[in-house]
């Protein structure tokens, strides 16, 4: 393998951390995308999102452990199952809060997150459950300048495809036009003949399903444990704030961008790697309070 140094850092370490940053960025992007879609449409800050990401990983593990259903079917089934739980939460609880302050939605979803995490911790413990990489994606590829584990490459590509597809649906299709219009003026959109309450329910289910999908993708990398969402969600909220609440493109670009920034910080100044995203968030809030891609920016 060809190795060289950049600013005194070996290329292997640099590209290794860049890849790690891209993988983290992929999860930041997928999760913040779902949060942005949900916030835009429901005006709810969905604190359950991290728990729903974790549920995706758990459902994949349960499908394999209890029913013998492997990774590829789980990649479809787990997001659908998690999405259905989202639909139930929206229909039975969240829809009562739309006319109230954001704080009520935040508190409810925060409480739900703690409940879901607690239940799974009681049942399965906190040490983590192994979930194997599918056979097709085992091993790695030598790119000449670095060794790329196949599964991690797959996660980055799959995440990019999901993010860009979601962006396309929202920004370039009739369904997306309904969503954007209903975000601005749901009363008028409903008076045009669109069933807005049903659209809201399906939007929440889809946003939550995206979190579930990210959870399945994460299961072979991080192992399955009840705290995996709680660890991630704070960073994801910072990503959403930096990108601009409700901005789809902002979530994708900022998610991947901040993952890379975090990875590079680990190479050049490791002490700051855990805080760099929050420092950026403070700077963005002071200079562009609506976020880099927010509508009022």
């Amino acid at each position, binding site marked *: 393998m060809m190795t060289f140094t950049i600013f005194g850092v070996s290329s292997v370490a640099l590209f290794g951390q860049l890849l790690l940053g891209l993988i983290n960025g992929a999860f930041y992007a997928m999760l913040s995308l779902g949060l942005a879609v949900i916030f835009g449409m429901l005006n709810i800050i969905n604190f359950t999102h991290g728990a729903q990401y974790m549920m995706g990983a758990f459902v994949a593990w349960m499908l394999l452990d209890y029913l013998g259903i492997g990774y590829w079917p789980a990649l479809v089934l787990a997001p659908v199952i998690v999405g259905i739980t989202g639909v139930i939460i929206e229909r039975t609880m969240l829809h009562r809060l739309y006319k109230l302050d954001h704080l009520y939605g935040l508190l409810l979803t925060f409480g739900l997150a703690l409940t879901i995490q607690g239940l799974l911790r009681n049942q399965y413990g906190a040490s983590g459950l192994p979930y194997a990489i599918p056979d097709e994606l085992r091993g790695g590829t030598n790119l000449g300048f670095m060794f790329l584990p196949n599964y991690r490459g797959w996660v980055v590509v799959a995440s990019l495809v999901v993010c860009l597809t979601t962006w396309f649906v929202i920004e370039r299709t*009739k369904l997306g*036009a*309904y969503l*954007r*219009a209903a*975000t*601005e*003026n749901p*009363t*008028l*959109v*409903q*008076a*045009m*003949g*669109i*069933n*807005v309450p049903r659209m809201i329910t399906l939007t929440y289910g889809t946003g939550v399903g995206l979190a579930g999908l990210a959870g399945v993708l994460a299961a072979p990398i991080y192992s399955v444990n009840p705290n995996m969402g709680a660890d991630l969600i704070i960073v994801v909220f910072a990503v959403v704030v930096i990108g601009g609440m409700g901005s789809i493109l902002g979530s994708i670009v900022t998610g991947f961008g901040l993952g890379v920034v975090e990875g590079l910080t680990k190479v050049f100044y490791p002490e700051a790697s855990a805080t760099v995203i929050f420092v950026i968030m403070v700077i963005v809030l002071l200079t562009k309070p609506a976020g880099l891609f927010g*509508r009022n920016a």
Partner: protein
Amino acid sequence: MREQTNGADGGRTPFLRVQGLNAWYGESHVLHGIDFEVHEGEVVTLLGRNGAGKTTTMKSIMGIVGRRQGSVVFKGTETIGLPSNRIARLGLAFCPEERGIFSSLNVEENLTLPPVIAPGGLSVETIFELFPNLKERLKSQGTKLSGGEQQMLAIGRILRTGARMLLLDEPTEGLAPVIVQQIGNTIRRLKQEGFTILLVEQNFRFAATVADRHYVMEDGHVVAMVRNAELDQRMDEIHEYLGV
């Protein structure tokens, strides 16, 4: 009411019949049992001063006020218990006073947003004939249009849907005389094509050029019905109601 509406059109079944309509915003009781009817192919206006309840009447017909009671029958279907999306799908289309152009959509997306609910709507080409400005600005952000163009877009988009009854809330408000004239021409053309139109207007002179009948509202009540042909004889009475 000084003149009853019943039998005003030879006993035909009304396209829209509103009876005993009450509406509330929160605790505030805004409409107090209003009655009126609109027949197929008519242009009818609701006239009245600010706060008389004209816009609330429109919103009550569409089912987008806080609470409403009474009866609103459209083409034989009672709509008082229906959500607004189902009311729209019966063939009623609403153009709000604030125009309701979506800033996150371009002109083309705004124009094609309302779903087609029945055959017989105008084609996009016909809408461009009526409002040529829209064709030139298809890719512009909806709210970047001038006030007049936004009004054209707001009217144009409901003509596509196949709805045969249009509720137009103050379509001339704040517009230049030349645009008001263009909207007047459009309303007359729509009437010729068989559309039924309920129009809220403060501009009485404009209303007189397009309408068949006028209902005058005051403090949440309908207080008079005037046929357009009777305007000259009843002008003093109308001026008194409208405070002209």
